[in-house]
C-alpha cells in the first residue's frame, strides 16, 4: 500500500514537472500558432543558468531566482531578435528555424560551459527524506518540486482566468485575428507570452537539474513528452496541459513500477524484465493515440478554428 502511495507521488512529481514545460509550449503554440522546437533549449538554459548562479551566489534559492529571471530575459530577447520574423511563415519554416536554434544553443553551451556538463548540488536541508505519513519517507526536494509546481499552476490559473492579460491570452488562443482587429497590441502580448513560456521552461529545467545532471541536449528527450502532453491536453489549453501532464507522469511511473511484476506472472522472468520497460514507455503514446481517436482536438480544445 505504502509502495503505491510513494509511486503515486513519484508520478505526480514527474507529471507536475512536465506540466511546467508543457504550459509554456502550449501557450506559445496555441496563442501564437508558433511551433517552437527550441523550447527544450530554454529548459536546458534554465538549468545551466541555475548551476552557474548557484555556484556564484552560494545560495540555492537566490541562484534559482536569478536563473529564472535570466531565462525570462533570454526568452524575450530570443523572441525579439529571431522568432518575431517567423510568425507569418508556415509551420515547416518554424520547425526548421527553431531546430537551427537547438543546434545553436547546444554549441553555445559547449563553448561557454564546456562539453562535460555541470552539477547542481542541493543545500543540505533539501537532501533529507521527509516522513509524509508514518512509514513513508519521501525526498524533500521532490516534495519541493511538487509544491512549487502546484503553486505555479495555481498562479497561472489565476493569471489566465482572472486578469486582463489572461483574458487577452485566452482571446488570443481562440481568435488571434479578432483581438488584433480590436486594437490590442498583439506584438507586445506575443513577446510577453513567449517570455512567460521561456521562464516556465527555465523553471522546469532548473528544478530538474539537481535530480538529473546539467548537460547538453538535456531538453530534447523531454520535449517530445511535452509535445505529447499538449496534443493530449488540447493545444493552447493550460487546463488541458495540466491534466494531461499528470496523466502522462502517473501512467509512465506506474507503468515502470508495476508492469514488470504483472508481466512476470504471464511471461518468463527474463522476457518480462526486458519487455516491461519497452512496453511501459509505450503506454503514454498509446494514451495519445486513444485521445486522438476519441477527441482529435485534445481533451480541452482551446480554439475552435
Amino acid at each position, binding site marked *: 500500500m505504502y509502495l503505491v502511495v510513494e509511486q503515486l507521488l513519484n508520478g505526480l512529481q514527474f507529471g507536475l514537472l512536465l506540466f511546467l514545460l508543457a504550459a509554456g509550449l502550449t501557450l506559445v503554440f496555441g496563442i501564437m500558432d508558433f511551433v517552437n522546437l527550441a523550447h527544450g533549449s530554454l529548459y536546458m538554459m534554465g538549468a545551466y543558468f541555475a548551476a552557474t548562479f548557484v555556484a556564484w551566489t552560494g545560495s540555492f534559492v537566490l541562484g534559482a531566482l536569478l536563473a529564472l529571471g535570466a531565462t525570462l530575459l533570454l526568452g524575450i530577447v530570443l523572441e525579439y531578435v529571431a522568432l518575431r520574423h517567423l510568425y507569418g511563415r508556415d509551420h515547416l519554416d518554424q520547425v526548421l528555424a527553431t531546430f537551427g536554434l537547438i543546434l545553436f544553443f547546444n554549441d553555445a553551451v559547449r563553448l561557454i560551459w564546456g562539453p562535460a556538463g*555541470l552539477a547542481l548540488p542541493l543545500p543540505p536541508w*533539501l537532501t533529507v527524506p521527509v516522513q509524509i505519513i508514518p512509514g513513508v*519517507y519521501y*525526498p524533500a526536494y521532490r516534495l519541493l518540486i511538487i509544491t512549487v509546481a502546484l503553486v505555479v499552476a495555481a498562479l497561472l490559473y489565476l493569471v489566465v482566468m482572472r486578469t486582463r492579460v489572461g483574458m487577452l491570452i485566452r482571446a488570443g488562443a481562440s481568435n488571434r485575428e479578432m483581438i488584433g482587429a480590436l486594437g490590442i497590441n498583439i506584438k507586445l502580448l506575443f513577446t510577453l507570452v513567449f517570455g512567460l513560456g521561456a521562464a516556465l521552461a527555465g523553471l522546469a529545467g532548473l528544478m530538474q537539474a539537481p535530480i538529473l545532471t546539467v548537460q547538453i541536449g*538535456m531538453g530534447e*528527450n523531454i520535449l517530445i513528452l511535452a509535445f505529447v502532453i499538449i496534443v493530449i491536453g488540447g493545444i493552447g489549453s493550460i487546463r488541458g496541459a495540466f491534466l494531461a501532464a499528470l496523466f502522462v507522469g502517473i501512467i509512465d511511473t506506474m507503468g515502470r*513500477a508495476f508492469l*514488470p511484476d504483472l508481466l512476470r506472472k504471464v511471461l518468463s522472468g527474463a522476457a518480462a524484465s526486458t519487455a516491461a520497460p*519497452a512496453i*511501459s514507455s509505450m503506454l503514454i503514446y498509446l494514451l495519445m493515440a486513444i485521445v486522438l481517436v476519441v477527441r482529435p482536438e485534445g481533451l480541452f480544445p482551446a480554439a475552435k478554428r
Partner: protein
Amino acid sequence: MKKAFWLAGAVAVALAQLATAADSIKIGFVSTFSGPTAVIGNDMRNSFELALDHLGRKMDGKPVEVIYEDDQQKPDIGKQKTEKLVQSDKVDFIVGYIWSNVLLASLKTAVDSKTFLISANAGPSQLAGELCSPYVFSTSWQNDQTPAAMGLYMNQKGVKSVFLIGPNYAAGKDMLAGVKSTFKGKVVGEEYTVWPSQLDFSAELTKARNSGAESIFVFYPGAAGVQFLNQYAQAGIKQQIPLYTAFTVDELSLPLQKDNAIGIPGAQEWVNDLPNEQNKAFVADYRKKYPGLRPTYYGAQAYDAAQLINSAVVAVKGDLAKKDAMKAEMEKADFKSLRGPFKYGNNHIPIQNFYLQDVVKDADGQLSLKTVATIVKDNQDQFHDKCPMK
C-alpha cells in the same frame, strides 16, 4: 595536348594517393563524440592520441593516420560509420566502440572485410562467445567480468541479498547477469530502465527500498551514473542500503557526483594508481597534455589498443597483408599494457585481474579513485567455451 596534360596530372595525383595509402597505417576510430556521452569519446581520443605521441606518431617507421567517426551512441549510425571506414577509407584497423549495442551492429561489417577490429570498451557476451572472430580483439573485458568481480566482493563482505538495477540494452543485461553469476546471496529484484532516455530512477529506487534488500547493485555508465547517485542520495537511501557498482563511478562522472560517490565501491581492471611504470607515465603525461582532465579506464583501454596495433605492425615489419602473422602476434599480448601484463583467451578477450576501487580525496584535495584490493586474479570470462576458435 591540353587534354593529355590534364590526364597525366590526374594519373599522377591518383598514383600519389595510392603511394601514401600504402605508406601509412590507417586506423578508423569509432566512438561517441556528440551528445551527453561525448566526454567518454573525447577521453578515448585523448588517450589514443597520447599513445601515438608516445610511439612518435609512427608504427614501424610509417606515419599513422587516424580517422575519427562519431557513432552518436546509436547502433545504426555506428554501423554506417564502420561501413564508411571499411569500404571507402579502406582502413587497416578499426578501434573504439563504447557501447555494446553499437559494436554488435558494426561487427559483421568489419569481420566480413577481414579488417582487424579492436574493441577498446564494449564487451558483449556474444563477442566472447559465438560471435568471436580471428579479426576481433578486446583491450577491455567481457561485460560480465567486472560485475562478476563485484559479486565476489559482495560475498566477501557477507552481503545476503541484493536488488539489481540496470539499463535495458545489451550491456545492461550482461552486467546484471555478471553479478548473478558469482553472487551467492539472494537476488530480491531486478529492474531494467529505458536506455538511454530514462534519467529519473525514482520508481526503481522506491521499489528497491521497499523490497527489503540488504544492498543495491547498479550499472550506469556516463551521466546516468551521476543522476542515479544524485537520486540515491537525495532519497536518503544512501544511509539505509549500501550501493555496489560497476562502471558507474569514474574520473568523468566523479567531478559531478562529488560527495555522493564517497564510500561507493566499484570493480575495475584498471585504476589510475596501478603501480607499473607505463601507467605512471600515461597518467602523468595525460594530465600534462590535457590540463584539468584525468584519464579514465576508457582512455587506458584506447591507449592499450594503440599499443596492441603497434605490436602487430612491428612484428610484420609494416607488411599489413600478413594478417595471420599479425593475428598471431596480437594473441601474445606482447606490449606494455597499462593494467600490467595480461594474456588473451582463445576468444581474444583478456584474462586479467580485477581490482576494488574506492573514492578518496587525493593530495590536491580532489576526489579521485584509488585501488583498495585485488578482488580476483587472472579472471577469464565465462563465455570462452562457446567460442569455436581454439
